[in-house]
């Protein structure tokens, strides 16, 4: 670990990543783009878990295990998400989430 790097640096990095992910989710209309934004949010959380685990020896394994589980579940969510997006594309020929809405009211 380079000298001068503290927990604050990691927390700010993860906060920045979380905000970028949130902006991505809010502004994108493409379903895949939104899924990418969700991925950014999950990785922001991962940075937090690993950093907190590194700087707190008592919780060394808890944080790392949590990060591994998040990576695994992100993969599972991507699989199901892309399958649904593919099914939508077969019906509508577009993956724009605002296009052709039939469920309204």
């Amino acid at each position, binding site marked *: 670990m380079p000298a001068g790097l503290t927990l604050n640096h990691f927390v700010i990095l993860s906060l920045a990543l979380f905000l970028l992910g949130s902006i991505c989710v809010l502004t994108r209309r493409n379903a895949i783009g939104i899924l990418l934004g*969700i991925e950014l949010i999950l990785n922001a959380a991962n940075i937090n878990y690993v950093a*907190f685990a590194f700087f707190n020896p008592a919780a060394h394994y*808890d944080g790392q295990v*949590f990060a591994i589980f998040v990576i695994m579940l992100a993969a599972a969510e991507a699989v199901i998400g892309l399958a649904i997006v593919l099914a939508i594309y077969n019906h509508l020929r577009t993956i724009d989430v605002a296009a052709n809405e*039939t469920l309204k009211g």
Partner: protein
Amino acid sequence: MDLGNLASLRLFLPELLLIAGVLTIIVLDLLLAGGSLLGELSLIITACALLLVAEAPHAAGDWLFNRMLVDDGFGFFFRVLIILSAIVALWMSIGSDEVKVCEQGEYYAILLAATVAMILMAESNNLLMAYLALELVSLTSYVLTGILRDNRRSQEAALKYLIYGGVASGMMIYGMSWIFGLAGSLDFSVINRALFMTRDAPALAIFIAVVLILSGMGYKIASVPFHMWAPDVYEGAPIPITTFLAIGSKAAGFALLTRFFYPAISHLTASGRWQALSNVDWPQLLVVVCAITMTLGNLAALQQDNLKRMLAYSSIAQAGYALLGFVLLSNDGVRAMLVYLFAYYLMDAGAFVVVMIVANATGREDIGAYRGLAARGGVWPAIALTVFLLSLTGIPATVGFIGKFYVFAAAIRQQFYILAVIGILNSVVSLYYYMRPVKAMFLEAPEPDAAPFTAEMWNYGLMGALTIATIGFGLYPPPVLDFAERSLRFFSGQS
């Protein structure tokens, strides 16, 4: 007691049975062509799991799997409620025309997996376990919502569910990471000790983390402002799945919400009241959320012509009434919430069963299909739907009245007068839209091209049982009240 992995298995039998059921169904689906009788098999497995839950020894409480799960009175209530929801959903699946066209093996295996996940959610005692269980519920629900592959509505609902769900659970684990950083542990009771022992804990950071976590759990119970998915998903999903999401998933959400907000970040004082962390005023926030949830759900339901969509908004409002018990921060309030959730299970499941019977007969879900239902030969479904809708409104002699009575009484005893008045006014408003289908069924003439009404005995059986339970528990509520009273025990290691 703090049980290890092998010692826990004895107390984990119902879940193990359900997991074995998931695997059995996947294998049988491969061996048998067509997958007939898989629904009946899942129903039998779930009923056996319910018996195992009832047979389980009632200890003061135990930690299972090295404190990952907790087995206590509160968990017992939700084990029973979630398995009962699964039984209703499976029974409806067997009788539903929509489900007959999809892959039977996949459908029932995923439905059972969702049941296990909901039970785990209600029993989790660790942030990691809570996240895993919640995510497993979400993933299975996305697939079940989109299971009608040739139906555009179903696919669109699955996509919306996925996007809202992904964002909500992402925000939730980000909030959990802050709690983990502040408390140095993932275990609920250790978090509790760490947060209450630390002098000058950063209140603002804890508050933001709690709000982020609330987004994940609020999305499961469909409270404002995380309710947007509910109407679309409820309308697009096959009706048995809509029912399962409305009763099972919501119950699991309330269980996790209570487990996190009561034993994990609040403190039970000697006088029997729960005390929130000082300077972290989440109860005040939830009071506002609760008032808006009730009002918005009811106002939006007023304009709906599709019964499924109307019941979706109504279930948002019903979640608001149950939240009313939750925000009181007292055992009295939690008891009222449990009674309300049980009442909600009976009446909402019943209403959806009738919607499914009508959809099977006519292929429609809009209010036009209900015009003159009584005159067209559907007197029994018309009477049953009337009972369920009256119960959802909270008219006396139905179980819905008992639920509302306890919730409002608890709110008044805790001096939350404004909230109680908002709740009662909302019940009055809801009478308008709940009575529209009743008027259509009994007073309006059938549409000229309406076919004669037919339905199967199988579905009538479930409808009748739920009707009798709705009226029966409304007239004689002590069993429900006792059940809720006995379930009011959180295990935190002291006893």
